[in-house]
């Protein structure tokens, strides 16, 4: 790890000011991606701005027809939240599938969303549930927020403060995970709200999380796993690596989508 200066602001406003002042500064949330990256010297921020001391970034609340989760809320807290379990059980189940219990005690939803790792779980939930990312400057719809491999709509000095999830009638996540890393080889989140159906896929595409529109159309006709029988996205543009080639990943997306619909319709 290269040397850095450490700052622990007590408000988002203060954090934004520090971010503006320190070129090459990075925000530190749970640190479970950033610190390993720094240990490998793949990242060398001049300063770390720790978001861990701000109550305004924590907590989960039901606000009308949405569940609003603070950016520094840990995966374990989402997994165990009675509010999330009641309103969007599929979201709590997704959080419970991230990493392992110790990782879930540290990793945060804001960190996961801002990093936009192509194999992370949360981006699929945001995209399928049509969530809104709330920052210190504005509100960004999930469709606009995720822009490809590790790329988001976040601008310089912008800090994710909350994520707002509209409650869906039916929603579930199915994930085929790499047994060593626990990252998704293919993860599919399906959500039905009114006549709208959204299917978001993570772990599979070289461009990061995406909506599988063909599956959405099929499910709009009838929301049942049978509607997706034999369907899989094209292997073109799917990740191929030592864990799974692109054809296998495309196949897994079809299987995971059917399992997610099955789970969503059977509760």
């Amino acid at each position, binding site marked *: 790890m290269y040397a850095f200066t450490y700052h622990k602001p007590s408000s988002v406003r203060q954090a934004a000011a520090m971010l503006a002042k320190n070129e090459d500064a990075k925000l530190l949330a749970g640190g479970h991606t950033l610190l390993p990256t720094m240990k490998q010297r793949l990242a060398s921020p001049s300063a770390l701005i720790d978001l861990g001391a701000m109550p305004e970034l924590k907590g989960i609340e039901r606000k009308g027809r949405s569940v609003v989760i603070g950016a520094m809320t840990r995966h374990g807290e989402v997994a165990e939240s009675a509010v999330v379990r009641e309103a969007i059980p599929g979201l709590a189940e997704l959080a419970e599938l991230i990493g*392992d*219990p110790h990782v879930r005690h540290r990793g945060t939803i804001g960190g996961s969303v801002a990093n936009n790792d192509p194999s992370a779980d949360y981006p699929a939930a945001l995209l399928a549930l049509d969530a809104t990312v709330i920052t210190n400057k504005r509100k960004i719809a999930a469709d606009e927020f995720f822009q490809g491999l590790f790329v988001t709509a976040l601008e310089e000095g912008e800090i994710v403060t909350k994520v707002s999830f509209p409650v869906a009638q039916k929603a579930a996540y199915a994930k085929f995970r790499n047994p060593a890393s626990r990252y998704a080889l293919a993860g599919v989140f399906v959500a039905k709200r009114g006549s709208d159906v959204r299917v978001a896929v993570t772990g599979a595409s070289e461009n990061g999380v995406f909506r599988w529109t063909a599956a959405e159309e099929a499910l709009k006709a009838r929301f049942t796993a049978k509607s997706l029988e034999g369907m899989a996205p094209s292997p073109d543009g799917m990740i191929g690596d030592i864990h799974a080639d692109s054809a296998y990943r495309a196949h897994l997306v079809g299987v995971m989508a059917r399992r997610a619909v099955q789970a969503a319709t059977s509760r």
Partner: protein
Amino acid sequence: MAIVNMTVNGRAVTADIDPRMLLVQFVRENLRLTGTHVGCDTSQCGSCVLHVDGQAVKACTVLAIQADGSSVTTIEGLSAAGGELHPMQAAFREHHGLQCGYCTPGMIMAAIDIVNRKGHALDETTIRDELEGNLCRCTGYHNIVKAVAAGAEAMGREPIRQAAE
């Protein structure tokens, strides 16, 4: 450099450290509490698991400075040196839940965290699922699973000595 204050195993500690210092380095090298091990150093194996404010974390992926103001418990904090073992430690000995012992401190800290979250009656599936962040290359896990189940039950039976937690 940065000043860090925390409580470790019930004792208040203060140090002037490089912000780069990991929590696991801090307890091992500054405090000489070498019961917490470093295995993979990539937040996978779990041999560095200790408790921060009562929750199990992988101390190779937490900066010591992030634990400023926190209460930390390491394996050394579970029982006094030479004194009676914590029920989970006793269960690992009784059920031979170890061979080389390298992963054991992390396993025991993880096991106590499972009991804190899931209670004293743990079935095998729950234990195996919950131990997914702790790797053991010797035992094949069988005796570890037995030890965790027995330790969890024993923790419910005995008046829990609060140790340092």
